[in-house]
């Protein structure tokens, strides 16, 4: 999607951030080996080639989450998105990718588009996704089969849509945290960080 307007509107910003999450989650699932690499195909976005899944059920699940996220982003009611990777057998949380979202609520009132070029936003998003790929070099190997879950931190008074349930934060005990780059669309600001279980070997 390319906006022909000069600026970024709230709706456009919500779409940009939702797209980023969609590609970012796919990239993480591919890079960390949660799903077999054969089930991923390449797509071109942000001027780079990214991996997205072809598995129908997973695609469906992700589409549901991302579309709901987009709504919430538009209403500025979402605060964080967390991707939790747990060991399949022991249900222990091994990795936690946290994306903090700050929304400029004043954009809800005024509908004037903000001045930020799409190219700059795409460049920032590209560097974040590149960083996610690069984290493979220092994150500990996930040796056991893993499952993932997506948690969304929303405002307390939000109406919970059907099929969504409340959950705990799934924090890792004894974690190492690494902050990654952030990007901003001038309406939404997204900070990224990854926390992983500290391994015994130093």
């Amino acid at each position: 999607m390319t906006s022909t307007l000069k600026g970024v509107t709230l709706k456009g910003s919500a779409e940009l951030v939702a797209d980023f999450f969609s590609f970012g989650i796919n990239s993480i699932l591919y890079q960390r080996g949660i799903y077999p690499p054969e089930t991923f195909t390449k797509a071109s976005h942000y001027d780079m080639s990214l991996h997205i899944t072809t598995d129908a059920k997973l695609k469906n699940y992700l589409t549901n989450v991302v579309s709901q996220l987009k709504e919430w982003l538009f209403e500025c009611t979402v605060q964080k998105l967390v991707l939790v990777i747990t060991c399949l057998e022991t249900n222990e949380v091994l990795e936690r990718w946290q994306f903090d979202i700050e929304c400029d609520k004043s954009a809800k009132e005024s509908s004037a588009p903000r001045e930020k070029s799409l190219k700059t936003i795409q460049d920032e998003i590209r560097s974040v996704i590149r960083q996610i790929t690069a984290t493979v070099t220092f994150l500990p190997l996930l040796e056991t089969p893993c499952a993932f879950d997506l948690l969304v931190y929303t405002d307390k008074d939000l109406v919970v849509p059907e099929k969504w349930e409340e959950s705990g934060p799934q924090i890792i005990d004894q974690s190492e945290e690494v902050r990654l780059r952030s990007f901003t669309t001038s309406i939404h600001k997204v900070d990224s960080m990854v926390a992983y279980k500290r391994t015994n070997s130093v």
Partner: protein
Amino acid sequence: MASSARNSNFAERRGKASRSFKRGVHVFTRRRSWFVNKMAQFGFENDIHSILKLDMPITNAPMARWQRKASSSSTSAGLSGLSPGNSTNVSLSSSKTPTRTPGKGKKTPSKMGGDRFIPIRNNKQMDVANFLLTKENEPVDATNTVSAESQKVWSVTLNGYNIEDAKILHLGGKPLNAPEGYQNNLKVLYSQVTTPASLKKTRYISPTPERILDAPDLRNDFYLNLLDWSSQNVLAVALHNSVYLWNATQGDILLLMKLENEEDYICSLSWTKEGSYLAVGTSDCKVQLWDVENQKRLRSMASHTARVGSLSWNDHILSSGSRSGHIHHHDVRVANHHIATLAGHSQEVCGLRWSPDGRYLASGGNDNLVCLWPRVQEGSSGGRFGRLIRSWSEHQGAVKALAWCPWQTNILASGGGTSDRHIRIWNVNTGSCISSLDTQSQISSLVFAPNYNELVSAHGYAHNNVVIWKYPSLTKVAELNGHESRVLNLILSPDNSTVATVAGDETIRLWKSFEMDPAKKKAKERVVQSAGGVIRNSIR
């Protein structure tokens, strides 16, 4: 009795005192009036004893310590007669200094009465009491907010977020798992990989040509392709209406052919892959085929209506482009050689190149178009007119420079003429322009140099030079200057080490810029073979 002796002394003094009563010594007389006085000489002693409240006065023994203390406090109390606070201080100090001899310490009789108890108040206790008193008056504030703050912090620490502000949701339903038995094989990342031998870092590109050949009578026409280098290391050049062959290994020159008609001239040259046959395009619309070994003309193929300015071989198919804009495919084995016509250009076809794998034909014309054609389908009924795959119109000038990348499939480079000056890299599968570079000069020829993964461009107006670019970054590696007029053609030697250029200044210059020493060359070949395994194990 000693005491009586003493008392008598006292009595005498008393007497004196009483005698000096009139002088105004009040103390003694007042004391006197207070106490019951049985014997004058014991008066003082009686005084003391009455204060002390002893049952029996111990006559001349020194006073017991407690007596001393009690008396000293009372005397000091009597002494100062000031406020209780001060008196305590005084008593403290005085009690700290024990009096040794009771007699000496008790010169001055006490003022106060004996039945008053004055407590010793420790200074420290006073301070403590003061503190406690004042503390109770402090307002009990800030405890509420402090606890709220700490509560919030605790909540965030324990829960990961402030419970008051947010709640966590996740999409219900079973979280999706990878198929059974799938184990990610990222471990492969850390396995040993044979490192490819590093290429020579220091490479010298000579700014002067290795050799200059004279090319008199060369036609200075931008649209012609008058230079080609065979795989047998023979350089063919067309000078007006003659074709000369220069054997690069031995250095001897051979005149291959000369057109009969003086007005006609040679427009294009192209060697077959094996280097035994040379195709010659002429201004009289014919394509001639020459056997070089026997120096015999094999065929003269007529099908065009205008001069044949470009030629390209694809095994036994010879493609020729003419000023009419048409491209003809010739099957040189059969009598009826003209098997297909490609009508894609509206002006002269000056650039024509088959890809190394023979799947695509790229053509560039004076109409600024770059056209892509498929391989010839022989024997098919619809083969008379070729089908265009795609055409690109991004260039703003005539496209004579076309080159296929030998090490990357489906990469085509094209260069534009004076009004365009851009090199464009295309992916012919997707049809997208991968990159574009402004070279500031008319581009007449492009060649990929595989030894160092470079792209070489020949320029006319205005720089008249040859530029070597790193591929795919398109950063300038070197410039080869020397030609005094626009460079018309550029061709790579069969061993990939030298490029030959011909220019309007009627010279052919040979630039040995891509030399590799044999050891590194062998290493490179080894790398190419092992690259397959490396790619499989690389980071995704």
